[in-house]
């Protein structure tokens, strides 16, 4: 379905030709029709200098203008579990672009394109070494280009986006990115630059606590010959100052924060297997209604395990309630513990409200579809799936609202 916006403007009589919008980017424009209409008689128009001016209307038909989602995460680009769950909600699996650079960080599915913000590094690995800056440092990134290109894609025009090669550490020749229905920009700095922030229709920050980050990095790296416990610890420690200075502050701008902490259900637990996950949702965000438990705006503590539902150790505990986060009103839904069986999952789903499912059991179905993904038995998988559904809902609302914009043609 095409959504058309009509721009009407007065043409200066000294202009002899209608100037077409300049094609500054390679790729296609969405279909544009320019109607040139001359006013029939010398009708006096008080607003102008007294002369009647011919007016022309440009009807721009943009097929469902791109919705832009920002995801701040420190876990590399595009291959993260969150991305896979998100693209799955929209249908289809996201794949690297076929036939292009095999080291591309981009993922493309039918509806969604995921861009890795590392592609906007202004300094490659050598450059960063020379200047003494990490990839976390804003000085290593070209925010002007990031803003320009995200804006251009949002307006329906394709761009040639650079590729940052994580293996060689070099900037490779660009690849063509065509405007998708949903564009996800994932990386370290999606909300750092104010102009880019304003382009986002929704933003998420994945906040992993230090203990959990350590446990995950050990799992990631422990099989590598070059790594040891010390090297993993040292790497996290060395990056922490830059992380705290440049990445962490973006939390305050996010519409939703997923915070991952060690469990409180097991006293003195230091294994990092059972997780406590908080979904912090900003109030008052357009097209986004926070998930709640039982009674919106109240404070709830809920242990679903009991007579109707038997759970194995350590069980499941939910809390929900309003709170304040960096000066904003938020609603916080928290899950501590693990799902062991299907019926636990469906039981929990049936008690949550505002989860934007299209049918009963959709959350459970999505979680089961990807039961091999990490986090499928705890709050990380649950909340990532729910956020995916909320984003789908947000997308559909935005599209619906745009199609209702009245189309006016000025005489």
């Amino acid at each position, binding site marked *: 379905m095409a959504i058309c916006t009509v721009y009407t403007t007065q043409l200066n009589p000294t202009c002899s030709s209608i100037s077409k919008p300049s094609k500054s980017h390679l790729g296609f424009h969405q279909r544009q029709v320019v109607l040139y209409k001359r006013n029939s008689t010398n009708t006096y128009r008080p607003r102008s200098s007294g002369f009647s001016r011919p007016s022309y209307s440009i009807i721009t038909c943009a097929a469902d203008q791109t919705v832009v989602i920002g995801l701040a995460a420190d876990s*590399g680009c595009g291959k993260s579990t969150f991305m896979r769950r998100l693209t799955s909600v929209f249908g289809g699996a996201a794949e690297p672009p076929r036939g292009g650079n*095999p080291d591309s960080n981009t993922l493309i599915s039918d509806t969604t394109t995921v861009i890795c913000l590392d592609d906007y590094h202004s300094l490659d690995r050598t450059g960063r070494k020379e200047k003494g*800056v990490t990839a976390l440092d804003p000085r290593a990134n070209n925010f002007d280009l990031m803003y320009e290109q995200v804006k251009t894609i949002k307006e329906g025009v394709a761009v040639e986006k650079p590729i940052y090669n994580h293996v060689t550490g070099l900037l490779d020749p660009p690849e063509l990115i065509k405007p998708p229905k949903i564009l996800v920009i994932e990386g370290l700095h999606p909300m750092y630059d104010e102009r880019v922030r304003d382009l986002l229709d929704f933003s998420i920050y994945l906040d992993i606590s230090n203990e959990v980050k350590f*446990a995950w990095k050990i799992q990631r790296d422990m*099989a*590598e010959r070059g790594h040891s416990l010390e090297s993993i610890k040292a790497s996290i420690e060395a990056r922490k100052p*830059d992380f705290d200075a440049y990445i962490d502050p973006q939390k305050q701008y996010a519409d939703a924060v997923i915070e991952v902490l060690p469990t409180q259900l097991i006293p003195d637990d230091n*294994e990092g297997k059972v997780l406590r996950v908080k979904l912090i949702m900003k109030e008052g965000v357009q097209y986004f209604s926070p998930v709640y438990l039982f009674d919106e705006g109240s404070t709830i503590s809920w242990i679903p395990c009991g007579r109707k539902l038997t759970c194995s150790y350590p069980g499941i505990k939910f809390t929900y309630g309003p709170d304040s986060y960096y000066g904003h009103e938020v609603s916080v839904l928290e899950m501590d513990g693990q799902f062991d069986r299907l019926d636990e999952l469906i039981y929990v789903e049936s008690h949550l409200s505002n989860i934007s499912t299209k049918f009963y059991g959709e959350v459970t179905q999505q979680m089961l579809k990807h039961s091999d993904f990490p986090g499928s038995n705890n709050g990380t998988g649950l909340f990532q799936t729910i956020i995916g559904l909320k984003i789908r809902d947000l997308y559909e609302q935005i599209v619906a609202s745009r199609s209702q914009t009245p189309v006016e043609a000025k005489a």
Partner: protein
Amino acid sequence: MMGSLALGSVSFWGSSRSVIKRDYDHDHGQDQKMKMKMMMMKKRSRVGMAVAMAGGAKFKGTQMREKQLNEMIEKKVKEATEVCGGDEKSAECKVAWDEVEEISQAKADFRLKLQKEDPLESFCQEHPETDECRLYDN
């Protein structure tokens, strides 16, 4: 999946950098246990990798890439350890460990890609004559 991991005490994150080494000694018992586990995992995974490679890595280019990444991790960890031996708080030290992180993540992504299919699959369909696209023999 992995066996249970015993982490050092949570208070590790509260301590300042200069105290890290002392914490190691303190948690010597825990660390030793962890190191044993890591050694076992490495032994097991190297066998596993050889088996997996027969399934996952099809092309020579991919096998070379895997080798390259492994070597880079080792090299960069060594470099970082050396650079930071001088001054832990220096910019050089930060950058060195950041490089280690970048390569470690690249290796993890590579491993994940390999589980589905050889990353060079579609490239090699177009360019089967290139060196990277020679079929990898175990």
